[in-house]
């Protein structure tokens, strides 16, 4: 990791994910660690996850990136809630 990871970088990435025309993603958490930047969260599709990782890698080419971004389950519910 050569590039400095500071609060400004974190804010820059957060805004990139939100404002990029292909994403509009606000559900990713960034964590600055000693040796890398970690992206965590859940998104609606594998394509979206891959695009997030691609864009951040592109924006911060000298930063080691770790990510654990899941795809939100979209199955039918198995239970209902009684509101009594």
């Amino acid at each position, binding site marked *: 990791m050569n590039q400095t990871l500071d609060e400004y970088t974190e804010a820059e990435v957060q805004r990139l994910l939100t404002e990029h025309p292909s*994403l509009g993603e606000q559900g990713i958490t960034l964590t600055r660690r000693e040796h890398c930047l970690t992206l965590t969260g859940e998104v609606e*599709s594998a394509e979206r996850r891959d695009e997030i990782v691609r864009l951040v890698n592109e924006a911060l080419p000298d930063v080691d990136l770790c990510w654990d971004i899941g795809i939100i389950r*979209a*199955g*039918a*519910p198995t239970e*209902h*809630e009684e*509101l*009594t």
Partner: protein
Amino acid sequence: MIRVAAVGDVHVDADVVGRYRPALEQLGDCADVLLLAGDLTRHGTVAEAKCVATEFGGLPVPVVAVLGNHDYHSDQPAEVTAVLEDAGITVLECSGTVLTVGGTRLGIAGAKGFGGGFAGRCASDFGEPETKAFIRTTQRIAECLGTTLRSLECDVLVALTHYAPVPDTLAGEPLEIYPFLGSYLLGQAIDSAPTALAVHGHAHAGTERGITPGGVRVRNVAHPVIKQAYSVFHLGEQLETKALSATGSAR
């Protein structure tokens, strides 16, 4: 009993089409209506709205929606609404609808809502024009939501918003962004009518359950929160109470 299915923040684009459909095809077996609590698209484009229409149109139950902040991003809420309505989805904004389910009238009042924060930590109609415009937007929406809720003639009343009416369902979100996630004014509007359930989205890192100061159950159905295609709520006690009341009146 009325069975209400609900989900929000599905953020549909071409990459998502088909993901919800298998679960949605089962809706007729478990629900009488599906509520969509906003952020149906990613950027509020017509193309994305068509994807929403493909995914949520033609279902075996009526679909009632409000838009969310993402659905306004391209400044085309009217066009997005038109696409959804062409697919048979009822889109509410400071308006309501009444569905008859097995002889029971289900009233749904809907509005996107807006931010402003919650009691003790809320924005006020004071200071710069931008600040005043922000809170006046919320006030206007909350007032019309309350008016709509109080005006619907129905047996069971549900409020549908994108923004949160209580802080309870925001637990898990950073405190710093609460003012951008909802407003107590929405809760006050919901409490001004005999609302049985309030459903919202928007808070992806929030929690499912909350309650207004007036005792109305609030459910955050943002997809990242419920982690399933939709949640289903059975509203029954209100009807039983009403039936008992009717019986009492007859005597």
